């Protein structure tokens, strides 16, 4: 049986739920709705239901612990090709090994999961610094990013704590999704249309120029080292950095 889900983490957990319902020995794979199908295998559309996802998540958390669940979630967000099968195996082994899952984390099947989780975590951490908000005329702080991994869910909490009194939004231009904080609630929404910008506040242009000036002057000329800079701040992030884009 091949299970087709909607590409979200809850959807994936629902597929796992159904696979367990049907008996995991019949499972041939889990994939997104778009993936090419097998010629002779039977397929099943998985309906995403939050209570089912919740049950799988709770069970895995209770059996294997907080860290194992965290690694699972982060590895999923890494969006590596073939993630469903690797993670399904991880979950199955987890339910079998329970807390001893951790003892096997250096084995190849678990190591991949840890590596993916690490990548997502590292990118989220880096982007906490590299997000650049612009102030729009109505006071909203707006930022755009295009991360390699789906790090938006991991970043939202940080800005919620830090900028609780502001309203802000971060738009993931690659996945057409945004988190929005309206001073009370955090909202994760699909934004299919590319956002049209929008008018900036009166001070915005001046502040950008001021930051660019600062950026230029804080470097020590005698130590110029573009390779070192790129290794910390890869070019793929430059597009959305105020200091690397001059108009």
């Amino acid at each position: 049986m091949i299970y087709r889900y909607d590409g979200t983490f809850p959807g994936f957990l629902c597929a796992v739920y159904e696979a367990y319902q049907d008996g995991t020995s019949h499972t041939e794979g889990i994939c997104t709705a778009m993936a090419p199908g097998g010629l002779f295998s039977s397929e099943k559309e998985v309906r995403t239901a939050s209570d089912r996802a919740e049950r799988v998540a709770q069970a895995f958390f209770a059996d294997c612990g907080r860290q194992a669940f965290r690694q699972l979630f982060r590895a999923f967000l890494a969006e590596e090709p073939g993630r469903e099968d690797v993670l399904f195996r991880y979950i199955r082994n987890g339910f079998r090994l329970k807390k001893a899952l951790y003892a096997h984390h250096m084995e190849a099947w678990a190591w991949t999961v840890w590596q993916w989780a690490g990548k997502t975590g590292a990118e989220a951490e880096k982007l906490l610094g590299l997000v650049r908000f612009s102030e729009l005329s109505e006071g909203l702080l707006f930022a755009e990013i295009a991360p390699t991994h789906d790090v938006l869910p991991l970043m939202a909490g940080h800005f919620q704590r830090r900028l609780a009194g502001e309203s802000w939004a971060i738009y993931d231009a690659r996945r057409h999704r945004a988190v929005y904080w309206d001073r009370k609630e955090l909202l994760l929404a699909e934004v299919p249309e590319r956002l049209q910008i929008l008018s900036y506040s009166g001070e915005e242009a001046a502040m950008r120029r001021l930051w660019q000036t600062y950026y230029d002057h804080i470097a020590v000329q005698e130590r110029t080292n573009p390779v070192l800079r790129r290794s910390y701040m890869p070019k793929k992030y430059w597009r959305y950095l105020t200091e690397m884009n001059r108009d």
Partner: protein
Amino acid sequence: MELRDRLALLADAAKYDVSCSSSGSRRGRQAGGIGNAHYAGICHSWAADGRCISLLKILMTNSCIYDCEYCVNRRSHDTPRAMLSVEEIVHVTMAFYRRNYIEGLFLSSGIIRSPDYTSELLLRTARLLREREKFGGYIHMKAIPGTDPKILEELGRYVDRMSVNMELPSESSLKLLAPQKSRSAILSPMKFIRDRLQENREERRRSRKVPAFVPAGQTTQLIVGASGESDRQILHLTEALYQRASLKRVYYSAYVPVMQGKHLPVIARPPLLRENRLYQADWLLRFYQFTADELLPPSSPDFDPELDPKACWAMRHRELFPVEVNRAPYEMLLRIPGIGRRSAWRILNFRRYGDLSMDSLQRTGLVWKRARHFLTVRGRYYGSGDTLSLRTELVSEKAGQALREMSLFEGQV
């Protein structure tokens, strides 16, 4: 002068202070306020020199009553002078912080009128940020030598980190290059902060309501290459600062020859390699349980330009190696070249579930190319034992090349 021009000037004047970190504080957001500290610190950008930008690092003014020969802001230097008002600093800090350009403010200043007068201005800035703007982000400020301890005491309650720069590693070079400053004048605010930190820790143990004093501790900076000290002297000083003054960090700044003076060395390029070696050794002191004497014994008072300090130490102590990865204690794992804190920790972790194989050893992230000469895996040795070829193996091709290029420019002309 326009704000932008002054900011440019005062960033230029501040950039030779290399301290960049925004770590070590757990300050939370105030009710109705903005900003908090991230314990590990966050880098927000990297400048063209590859150094991270975490805090808005500026001087309040680059005017100064002192005339220290190595300093770009010395009184006799013919350069434009500027000043930012307290309100301007607060405004720019808040505007940058909201846009997530920075993690907070690192404010230093040339000394105008008197140390007390200058420190009062710093204090006013910190107070405005914390009290009026309810700013919870990171603040790092300079403790200016010669300031009344009462002012420092108050400043310490608003900021996360304070630093006093030693700049010159010995009394004699201080006399030569900064005759208006004395070593005791520099050390006394450092001691004051250390003592207050200890007291504050005690007070806070009794009651959490006591406000924290400089929660992220104090740091200092040493200029490398402006005066004649050996690496050994500098490293011993560093060790003393960590042990006796309980500093969080010692920063090293390769002397950039922007100034000319009769007591200053004439060099074509800043001694970056030497600075790098000092940082490597600094890490070995703080995280790898090495002592300064082990890294630089009297017989070799300077670092080897080709080999990092840890590899040098291991080469001098061949009798201790190879060690078995499955048996060696943590302290010994840390001393193996090619194994860092993370890989040593992983080895310990993996070992709890049985002996490591070659496969699982590779997954600890160690640098096999280097480590293999110093360890055995399940009793088997994979390295080359002969000292001469070992040295060539450890000096990486890339490092060797970089070194040859560098030595063409570096050093005294």
